């Protein structure tokens, strides 16, 4: 057997690692090259202050499919959970917190509780029917190939098999905005906002943006069949997911090198034939698979000289500017949210009091400003996993929307003020928070770009939107994990089915590589 690598994966994010694991288990000789000093990409745990560790980008696991967890045996390779089936709690400034899933006897009216239950049953049914689309290579339009026609027929059948009533409802709401959908179904402003929040997290959209019902369905579809079910927090943070994937890949024979930066894909005879490292070394490989975002993959690693102008134009138009910031706090005492039992710190907490609050928060970002009253998803990982902070102390991780990638005044001039706004906003729900802060860290999308190497700092590697989904993600000509350059593949979140720690793009890409190599 030749020494040559049959596959080289650029980037050891969760998708790169899952891709490597599947290829290695299929008997391929695989090399993974990661520029950072540790594996994980945006699913990583790191210290942000002495003794305080945090999931530096993604902070909850809720989209990892059971199939991948089981196929790779992640549980037996070190993946354990500190919190499972986490509830969502909509925080209220006056303490009228709403807990979801909704139960009778709480703040919500009986009719809202009933509507919520019926609504979620129906939405989850839609999600279950759409789910199979996520786990396969999307079809190409107009190719004339049998497999593409079959995939399109399967999609049509998935929708048709909902039955007449539900199919009509799905087609009715598909292009709607989540503001109207939530207002149709619920009375309580907080409940409406909670539904909308899930549609908006990680997108460049407000509740009134068309297509936000689609992003909600997408999120629910990615959560369908996840293991463990619901929101969960791995022991050791999200980095533990990456570590488990890396362990599986290594056990299957993949070689993983960290601290090695790939400068360019090496092209020979119009085919990807290896990688050129920053130190000038060329490593030859049969298939070169990029875990990087589309812009970095095509413009940075490959180079536009190997691509046609029309394709380059499409990649250039692919929208991948982040709108979400991360805030990490080290606290001397647990945060005291109004009317929240200490066990509540083990759940997922949202600051999103109403649809209009969300829409106003989004408005700012359209004009290059951060939200004065941001929407925030808060977790207190140390409440479930005490090893993340020194004894008795706590860490808080918050995703804050909206914070545009390019602030019109430049982030260096406003980042201090923005962090203060975020702390003030949380303080309004958790009095006394400010006094307990020992350390704080703000990652704007620009910081996320720098730290994780994601051009635009969008953790999905590209907006989730109608024109960037499924068979056109990231762009036509590269939406089946293959690219215009033979042997150069994509396996990151910029490819179908997108981001969120689920490792599906990596798995799908590996299967596509194996199919091509067969």
């Amino acid at each position, binding site marked *: 057997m030749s020494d040559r690598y049959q596959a080289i994966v650029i980037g050891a994010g969760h998708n790169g690692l899952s891709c490597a694991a599947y290829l290695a288990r299929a008997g391929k000789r695989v090399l993974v090259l990661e520029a950072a000093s540790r594996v994980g990409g945006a699913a990583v745990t790191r210290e942000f202050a002495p003794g305080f560790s945090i999931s530096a980008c993604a902070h909850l696991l809720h989209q990892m499919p059971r199939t991948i967890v089981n196929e790779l045996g992640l549980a037996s390779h070190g993946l354990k959970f500190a919190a499972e089936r986490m509830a969502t709690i909509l925080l209220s400034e006056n303490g009228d917190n709403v807990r979801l899933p909704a139960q009778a006897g709480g703040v919500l009216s009986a009719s809202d509780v009933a509507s919520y239950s019926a609504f979620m049953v129906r939405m989850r049914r839609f999600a279950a029917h759409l789910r199979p689309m996520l786990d396969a290579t999307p079809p190409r339009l107009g190719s004339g190939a049998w497999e593409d026609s079959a995939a399109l027929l399967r999609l049509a059948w998935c929708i048709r098999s909902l039955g007449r009533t539900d199919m009509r409802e799905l087609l009715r709401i598909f292009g709607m905005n989540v503001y109207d959908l939530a207002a149709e179904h619920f009375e309580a402003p907080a409940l409406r906002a909670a539904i909308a929040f899930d549609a908006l997290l990680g997108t460049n959209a407000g509740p009134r943006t068309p297509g936000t019902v689609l992003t909600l369905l997408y999120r629910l579809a990615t959560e369908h069949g996840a293991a463990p079910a619901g929101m969960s927090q791995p022991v050791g943070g999200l980095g533990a997911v990456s570590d488990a994937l890396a362990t599986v890949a290594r056990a299957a024979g993949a070689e993983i090198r960290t601290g090695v930066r790939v400068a360019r894909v090496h092209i020979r005879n*119009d085919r990807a034939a290896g990688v050129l490292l920053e130190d000038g070394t060329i490593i030859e490989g049969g298939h070169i698979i990029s875990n990087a975002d589309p812009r970095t993959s095509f*413009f940075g690693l490959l180079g*536009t*000289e190997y691509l*046609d*102008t029309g394709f*380059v*134009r499409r990649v250039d138009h692919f929208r991948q500017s982040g709108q979400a910031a991360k805030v990490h706090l080290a606290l001397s005492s647990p945060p005291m949210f109004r009317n929240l039992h200490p066990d509540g710190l083990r759940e997922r907490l949202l600051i999103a009091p109403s649809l209009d609050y969300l829409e106003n928060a989004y408005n700012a970002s359209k004009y290059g400003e951060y939200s004065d009253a941001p929407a925030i998803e808060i977790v207190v990982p140390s409440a479930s996993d005490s090893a993340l902070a020194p004894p008795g102390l706590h860490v808080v991780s918050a995703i804050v929307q909206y914070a545009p990638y390019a602030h019109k005044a430049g982030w260096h001039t406003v980042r201090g003020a923005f962090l203060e706004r975020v702390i003030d906003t949380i303080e309004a729900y958790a009095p006394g928070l400010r006094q307990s802060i020992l350390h704080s860290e703000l990652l704007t999308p620009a910081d996320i770009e720098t730290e994780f190497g994601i051009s635009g700092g969008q953790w999905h590697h590209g907006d989730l939107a109608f024109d960037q989904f499924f068979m056109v993600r990231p762009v036509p000509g590269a939406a089946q994990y293959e690219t*215009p350059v033979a042997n150069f593949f994509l396996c990151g979140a910029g490819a179908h089915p997108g981001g969120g720690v689920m490792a599906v793009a990596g798995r799908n890409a590996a299967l596509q590589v194996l199919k091509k190599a067969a």
Partner: protein
Amino acid sequence: MSDGLHPPPHYNRPLLATPFQARARARSQVDQFVAWAGYTTVDVYTTVEQEYFAIRNACSVYDLTPMVKYRITGLDAERYLNRLVTRDVSRLKPGRVAYAVWCNDDGHLIDDGTLFRLGASEFMLCTAERQLDWLLDSAIGFDVDVAEITTTIAALSLQGPTSCAVLKAAGLSGVENLRPFCIGRFSLDGKEITVSRTGFTGDLGYELWMAPGNAEAVWDSLMVAGRTRGIRPIGSQALDMARIEAGFIMPNIDFVSAEATVRIGRARSPWELGLDWLVDLTKGHFNGRRALLAERKRGVARRLVGLDIEGNKPAEKALLYADKRCKREIGAVSSALWSPTCKRNLALAMLDTPHFATGSEVFAEIYLCRELEWERRVARAVVVSKPFFAPERRKVTPAWDR
């Protein structure tokens, strides 16, 4: 409406005037103008025949200013152009000109043009259609600057057997030593002009590039120098006759720009247009290369060829058939004329495979309107090689200068 003090609003005068406009209007006898790329230009000055024979027997002057011109500079200019066009730009030396075409991702022709290499990293690209968005999007990832400079350069084309003699008489000593597709810099009555031995007629000829401020003076000097050598300004119609004889294709006549086609299957590849000699598959990647390789592997479905048609009635827009009874349609004529120089009835036509092979016999369905009575003729035609007219004088150096 104009009050005499203020110019009329621009939307009432949508066409620009070239710097030669006043001279052209003075010479125009039939007031026949056409719009070309946003300019008013002369279609016919006197009669088409008179102007055509100036090209082939004396010296014609054609106002080339509306030709769209781009200046391409920067460290990556050569690399950028090599990715843009289908031929190998690295083999184009400074001071030389090359005919080039460029394709979209599907390997379909967007446009053709002439590429002037003015220095190691300085080029001028002359095109029929405006291309700025394609050129700018092609620049993503390259250290290159693309600017449209159409209005900053006035251009005249001198074509015909006495064109070199006219230039020498005007004081351009040594111009006879300029080889085909070479660029030289000369002085004409103290005015600096750039001369390239290029043209669209397949004849001996030159293109003159100058500052717009010098345009009228250069025109006047040429007319004086050419008085005894049959110099004559010509319009677009006469030029179109000469270019068909030379076998040159015209965008939107012989092919439609791939970025402008609406219907599927209407765009054309270099293979289909018979431009194989312009495509270098060995130079590395360029726009459309992968699609062109795939098309060649599949087999080219149709091809633009030359036709020699019996009779003397031009087969304009004629449909072509495999059989005399006109049952099996196999193509169509895109350009046609009775060639006064070749004394042949010629056409450029797109023919389906396998009928495009040289020597194939096809039939053209020609409709003639004779004093409002229509006659239909089916004329036998043979696929012949191009160009139809290629005199030695077009490439002899030193050029004819008497």
